[in-house]
Every structure is written in structure tokens, then in C-alpha cells.
């Protein structure tokens, strides 16, 4: 009797997995990529708060605060004309080519703690790249518009995203800061849509949402 019920249980489970797979609504999985401290988590939090009322993760001024990719599923974004897109947002660790614990010491961190942070950040970059290869349908590439966009890592990352034929929106963040120069980012990546926003203040995010519906739907 127990064997029978167990078999029935597992058959039920398998059937439900089959059903879920069959009727699963296709969601677009959007990865927020960019160098450390560009404001990826701030934007992920803003998107999640605007459309679900929830947050994704903590933010800090110390680089590599996000060291594991974080996901927020089933975010429905509705545009002004009623068009909508259902997305999963993946907030990824900042991608960089060099991680040195010394940079964390400047923020008053203890050496041991800084070394652990560097190690976790390295694993985080590997994880971000793994997601990009396996499980991402579109990319929001975040840049700090007060900084030079022509950094090797940005050129490489945009190149990698292009080679994977993923739709990409480039976000020139931090336009609330006085020395922000989003035009520099526009001229650096003329082949992609660029939206200038302030993730912190929520400035111009409507334009980003419209672009997301247009590019990721």
C-alpha cells in the first residue's frame, strides 16, 4: 500500500513538473551587468520596488557589495501604451578584471575581512559570467556616467554581449551627480540604445521602462 501511494505520489509529481514545463509562461531573464559601483543593485531595487514593492539586495559605496547574483522573478512592467513585459531581474556582481583587497582597506575595512571580500568578489565575477553564458535573455549594461566609459572591461563586456546576440540597453547612471556626462557614454556605444537615469533618485526611469518593453518583449 505504501509502495503504491509512493509510486502514485511520484507520478503526480512528475506529471505536475511536465505540466509546469508545458504551460510555463516564457519570461525574459534580464541581467543587470556593469563594473563595480555603477549602481546595479540600486537600479534592481528601484525596478523591483516600482513594480512589485519589494527590494532585491543591500547597496553600499564599497565596491563589490553584491558578490552573489540575486534574482527577482515575475516583474511585470507596463508601458504608457499598455504594452507589458514580464521579466526576471538578475542583479549580478560587478564585473572587473582586477580585484585587490587593498581597495577595501580604504573604506576602513579590516585586512582579513577585505581579503574574504576580494575572494567572494572573484567568485561573484565568475558567477556573473556563468549566468551570462547560460541563462540570460537580455542585458542592461550599467555605467557610472561620471567615469570614462572607454575602460577595457566595458568594451570587452559589450563585445561579449554582442557576440552572444543578446539585446542590450546601456544605462548611463548617476545623472544626479554634477560631473555626470551621459553624452560620453552615448558616443562610446552608438550602436546601442542608451538611457540616462538616476537610479538613486528615480529620474528618467520611465524612459528606461519603455526601452525595456521595446527591446526585451
Amino acid at each position, binding site marked *: 500500500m505504501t509502495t503504491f501511494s509512493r509510486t502514485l505520489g511520484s507520478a503526480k509529481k512528475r506529471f505536475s513538473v511536465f505540466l509546469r514545463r508545458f504551460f510555463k509562461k516564457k519570461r525574459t531573464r534580464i541581467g543587470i551587468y556593469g563594473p563595480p559601483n555603477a549602481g546595479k543593485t540600486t537600479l534592481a531595487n528601484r525596478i523591483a520596488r516600482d513594480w512589485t514593492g519589494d527590494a532585491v539586495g543591500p547597496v553600499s559605496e564599497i565596491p563589490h557589495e553584491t558578490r552573489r547574483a540575486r534574482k527577482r522573478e515575475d516583474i511585470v512592467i507596463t508601458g504608457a501604451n499598455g504594452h507589458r513585459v514580464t521579466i526576471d531581474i538578475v542583479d549580478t556582481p560587478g564585473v572587473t*578584471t582586477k*580585484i585587490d*583587497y587593498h581597495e577595501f582597506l580604504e573604506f576602513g575595512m579590516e585586512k582579513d575581512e577585505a581579503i574574504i571580500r*576580494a*575572494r567572494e568578489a572573484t567568485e561573484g565575477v*565568475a558567477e556573473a*559570467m556563468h549566468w551570462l553564458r*547560460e541563462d540570460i535573455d537580455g542585458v542592461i549594461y550599467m555605467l557610472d556616467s561620471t567615469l570614462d566609459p572607454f575602460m577595457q572591461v566595458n568594451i570587452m563586456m559589450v563585445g561579449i554581449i554582442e557576440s*552572444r546576440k543578446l539585446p542590450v540597453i546601456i544605462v548611463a547612471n548617476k545623472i544626479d551627480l554634477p560631473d555626470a556626462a551621459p553624452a560620453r557614454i552615448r558616443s562610446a556605444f552608438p550602436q546601442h540604445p542608451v538611457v540616462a537615469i538616476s537610479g538613486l533618485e528615480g529620474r528618467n526611469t520611465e524612459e528606461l521602462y519603455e526601452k525595456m518593453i521595446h527591446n526585451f518583449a
Partner: protein
Amino acid sequence: MPHKCTKCGREYKDGSTEILKGCASCGGKKFLYVKESEINKDVFEEKTIEEIAGESKEEVLEVVEHVAMGKPKKEVEMFDRVETIRIVGPGSYELNIDKMAKSDERIVSVGDEEGSYIIDLMSMAKDEPKKKKGKKR
């Protein structure tokens, strides 16, 4: 037989390790091996050590250690590198994101020098077809 600095003439005992750091007086890097009997030849004949070096058949020793260390290190571009991650030191890493974007295979190099690698065989032993199955693109 002693050595003499070709620049300032300071004497150093045979086998002295001091000269490996260069002359203690003038920082000269070249030393002449002189015979015991001719140790004061430069003073008596009012010649420089370099002139004596030209006359004698002895080879002038040059401290090359410093020269080798001063050579600019050959910087290998990140995308030419074979390793995915270079561990420069504890808590200091260089990442090859181009390689990371292509596969999960991990080759790790340790230290600042080229030619020392750790290969994570487990990362390469994954079942490729299965992985592709789950792939969306």
C-alpha cells in the same frame, strides 16, 4: 686575488659577496679581477682601472643581477592569457573575463610570474551535452 671597482678603484676581497650589490662606494657595477702583485698598479702607474682592464686579459665582471631585475616585466595582455584567474597574492586577483564568458573551465595561475598554473580538472569534466540541453541559445 681581489676585485677592484672599475669606477672608483675600491678593493674587494676575492669571493666577496658584497660586489653582488654593486660597489659600496660609488654603486659601480663593473669589477676587474686583479692579480695580488698588481693590486696597486693603477695607483703607481696613474691609470684608471678601466685602462688596466684594457691592458690585462682579465674579464671585467659585471653585476648583472640588478640589470636583470630592472628589466621591464613583459606584460601579457589579458586576452592572450591561458589562465582564467591569476592569484597575484592573498586577496588580489586578476580575472580574464573573456575566458570566463566562453566556458566554466578554470585555469588558475599563481603569483606574478608567467608559467605557473593550477588547472581545475573538475571544471573541465562537466557533461557538455547535458549543459547544452539546458541552454536557451
